[in-house]
């Protein structure tokens, strides 16, 4: 799955989780999830469980910090890293 596709899916997830944030989808990717969207523990955990289910990954414990999920770019990097790690494991 390429970076762009991950990003589009992620933006859809975030639009659904922050419906009243005042950000259009095309600028959501530049928002700070904590400062601009008000991400709290509820939405943070919701993001985790949804990306794990949709992308078929498990976010490692040491990455489970809100600070690591401040932007779409941050989350895309995490998802890509875990998908890649999963492929390496499956092929070895």
């Amino acid at each position: 799955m390429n970076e762009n596709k991950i990003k589009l899916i992620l933006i859809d997830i975030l639009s659904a989780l922050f419906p009243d944030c005042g950000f259009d989808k095309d600028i959501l990717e530049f928002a700070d999830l904590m400062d601009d969207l008000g991400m709290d523990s509820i939405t943070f955990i919701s993001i985790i469980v949804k990306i794990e289910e949709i992308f078929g990954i498990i976010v490692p414990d040491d990455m489970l910090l809100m600070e690591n999920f401040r932007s779409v770019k941050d989350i895309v990097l995490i998802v890509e890293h875990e998908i890649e790690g999963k492929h390496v494991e499956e092929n070895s």
Partner: protein
Amino acid sequence: MTNLEIMLKYVSEHNSFYRISEMQEDLTLEKRPIIDRFTVQKLKKKILSEEYLGLNSRNLITLITSGSSGQPLRVYWDVKDYYKSMVCLWRRRYLYYGISPTSTVLNFNYNLYNNVSTSDSLRYYQRKNILSVNKASLSNEKAMHELVVLLNDMNIDWIYVQPSILERILNYYLRHKIEFPKVKYIETAGEVLSEKLRNNILYYTGITVTNMYGSEEMNGIAIECPYGNMHVLSENVIVECAENDCVTQTGKGSAIITNLHNRAMPFIRYNQGDVISLSEMRMCQCGFCDQMITNIEGRERTAVTIAGKILDTTIITEVVESVNNLLEYPIYLYNFVYLLSDQKLIGYIKLEELYKKWERTVSQELNKEFKKRGYSGLNIEINYNDAKIDYNKKQSMFIVR
């Protein structure tokens, strides 16, 4: 390193209580002693890891547990570790049942919510997708009616509830011939779920109840999958069982649990106070391979109705917690007995050493708190004779005789 090895390495380096010199290099549980609530209560903040001593409440989440044991305990979590621990439970809720933290939920707790004018009214708080109800306020018909009205107006996805409260709510709906709210999911926790209640909920509402076993000390310990098997949340805890000082990975005995995330206040081989039956790891139709908990025996919940109001462990726990919060935790242990013949409630209280001379103040405040909740006619006697405290923690802290 596994999560267990990471936790044991952490406590050996950062926690003076768990730092046992001959075990510095031992990253297994085998030789570690079992601790219980008495030990943790006595230690107070000495069980906190060094980097968390002196930290204020902004960095730590504080949970208070007492429930049916009559032993108040404050549990501290680093916010980050608390999220990691909660994610373990939410993963299963989402994968099994499609429930996420943003699903609309009705839950029950001891938070006071002073949004009402009379002691008979429902105390609740609504924020975003969460409707939180003070469970002690559900002790009379008026409050139950208010809950029904609230639920009619809201579209609740799921209910998180103790079995005794669920039973009370179901009985109210049945008695008044009202249709039970159409929710997707009901999860029970905090008490033993009887097959009778499970079957009644299914029969009258069509909803299959899911049982979750957890605690403030551990967060989620195990949860039932859609196939009815109670899976240990092995990403969050290690569960063993002990009988006669012999700890095993399978069998029946006291639940001995190690939390894999709480660095602030680690619980390593902690006797949770329940008796469980634990199987070896096995594959389930749900797709997960875990140890299963096949039976849980907890303390019985007792209740008595006085002048139309229910008096049970939830009320008593809330009253004691209110006094403890007000007076900085003088009450160390408690048992309450309601004598039907004398229509009298007797509280057996053990105070902390520091508060030994506060008996009169504590009694006054306990009486005030019962009165605030509408039990003004209740005949209450408070007894500070230590010898009368029931240290047999196998029975509930509230008994009716």
